[in-house]
């Protein structure tokens, strides 16, 4: 984005007499405002709608379908409803902290978008510490959740808050260790640099670089789900045991802010996974010569990849049951952390042994993934066929046949 503003200034776009820093600040505010209000808000809202529709399908019901086509405007309706709700701050709560907590959570979530790439040159700021900054700033969410849990002065909230802190803090370790192989491979921390080190073809992606990164990818995704408090790791707000966890005392708009951050974080998870392991916005350059359609294509491919992982997260939520606290801790410290260590060391050894990479392994791993996808598609086809068959059988009506028979 800096190049764009620089070129605008060089072209004399800035009115004379205006100090240069004002022009830059204005540009930052405009671009930041566009990203926050045009991208983040709708993406967080629409994901709630997607989640409820998918949940409906998975549970053999319909889901929201009244507001707008297929219930698409449900997220707006929910937002408006939340704005119109009475504001309740419990009299026993620590009021300043109680009111500050949603701000902190939202800050941790919104600030992550500074380094989330959108496609091609579209990125707010390609920080040279990109991925490290992202892990650091998303950790602000823990502070907010802990603040909310403590300030509510409610036993459910306190338990939810400290559980959440323990969980997010534990899963930071495997997540951080799974990022390191990619950093070693790309030799940079910047998001655009990491994407630039990969190509459009699956066998050039980091996930298929060697067997260790293949596992690091899954560890990162699982840890990111745990950090985002998603089922099967949604213990902090486990509604069947802790009412609503850290958000028990929050109602109306403040509750909405917490959950906007949670659903928006799903997209951040998808974008991080895509950037680090799945080739980001890379497309074959022959596909589009002109910059504008190329950027549109790059945005589309990045969004599709990132949103696929949002869909997977939603799908996991409505498929798997919640795990217990001790299981969650054991899984992190006794399985994910040692395996992540092995991945890290394995990648280092691999890079020393094969500085140029092993094309055969890349192709083999890509073929393995393709095989898994084909096997999965066959399962889907099988189930769809079976569902269609049952529907036919259900529509079989003995009375109508009886009538036909009597006529005959």
């Amino acid at each position: 984005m800096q190049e764009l503003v620089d070129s605008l200034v060089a072209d004399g776009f800035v009115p004379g007499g205006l100090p240069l820093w004002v022009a830059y600040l204005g540009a930052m505010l405009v671009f930041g405002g566009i990203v926050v209000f045009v991208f983040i808000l709708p993406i967080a809202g629409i994901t709630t709608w997607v989640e409820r529709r998918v949940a409906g399908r998975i549970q053999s019901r319909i889901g929201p379908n009244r507001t707008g086509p297929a219930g698409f405007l449900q997220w707006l309706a929910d937002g408006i409803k939340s704005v119109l709700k009475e504001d309740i701050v419990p009299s026993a709560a620590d009021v300043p902290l109680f009111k500050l907590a949603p701000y902190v959570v939202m800050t941790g979530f919104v600030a992550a978008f500074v380094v989330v790439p959108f496609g091609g040159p579209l990125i707010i700021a390609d920080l040279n510490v990109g991925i490290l900054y992202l892990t650091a700033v998303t950790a602000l969410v823990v502070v907010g959740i802990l603040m909310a849990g403590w300030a509510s002065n409610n036993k459910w909230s306190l338990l939810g808050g400290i559980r959440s802190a323990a969980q997010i803090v534990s899963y930071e370790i495997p997540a951080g260790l799974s990022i390191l192989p990619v950093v070693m491979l790309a030799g940079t921390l910047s998001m655009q640099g990491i994407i630039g080190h990969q190509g459009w073809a699956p066998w050039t992606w980091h996930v298929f670089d060697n067997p260790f990164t293949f596992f690091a990818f899954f560890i990162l995704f699982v840890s990111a789900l745990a950090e985002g408090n998603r089922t099967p790791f949604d213990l902090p707000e486990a509604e069947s045991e802790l009412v609503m966890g850290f958000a028990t005392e929050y109602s109306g708009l403040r509750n909405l802010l917490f959950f906007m951050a949670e659903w928006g974080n799903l997209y951040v998870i998808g974008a991080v996974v895509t950037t680090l392991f799945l080739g980001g916005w890379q497309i074959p350059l022959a596909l589009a010569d002109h910059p504008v359609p190329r950027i549109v294509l790059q945005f589309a491919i990045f969004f599709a990849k990132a949103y696929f992982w949002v869909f997977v997260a939603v799908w996991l939520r409505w498929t798997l049951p919640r795990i217990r606290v001790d299981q969650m801790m054991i899984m992190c410290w006794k399985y994910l952390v040692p395996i992540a260590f092995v991945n890290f060391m394995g990648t280092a050894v691999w890079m020393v042994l094969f500085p140029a990479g092993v094309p055969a392994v890349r192709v083999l791993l890509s073929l393995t993934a393709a095989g898994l996808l084909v096997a999965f598609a066959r399962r889907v086809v099988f189930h769809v066929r079976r569902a269609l068959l049952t529907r036919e059988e259900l529509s079989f009506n003995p009375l109508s046949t009886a009538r036909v028979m009597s006529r005959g």
Partner: protein
Amino acid sequence: MYFQFANVLVFFLLAFVLCGLMLGLGLLLRPSNPHPGKLTTYECGEPPSGNAWINFNIRFYLIALVFVIFEVEIAFIVPVAAVFRDWIARGQGAFALAEITVFVAILAVGLVYVWVKGDLEWLKRLPQYRGEPAAEPLRRDAA
């Protein structure tokens, strides 16, 4: 460079503006019918018993301690990881790998120590019961 990092501050500001705008809009639109009953702490419909600012389990402190050790370690590894490729290109890959191995091995010993000491167990048992098989839960005969 300054421009890049100024964006971070702008986004912090925008997040606060976003929350402030929404809450401010709510302030204008929402009803306000205060009632002391609404402002009590929720405890499943019962009057709340005592304060919620209580001591919580020591296990959480242990997790926090272990976390700090490993997070600092990751913070130290990140710069090494970022230049590892350059070292290999300069033909010093084996040397860099040996250094990383020593560093990670020390921390692996730390993980093993914590593990053996039983601090990764979430369900703990008192020392005198350690090693015994878990007691059968009391059978409740149907009334």
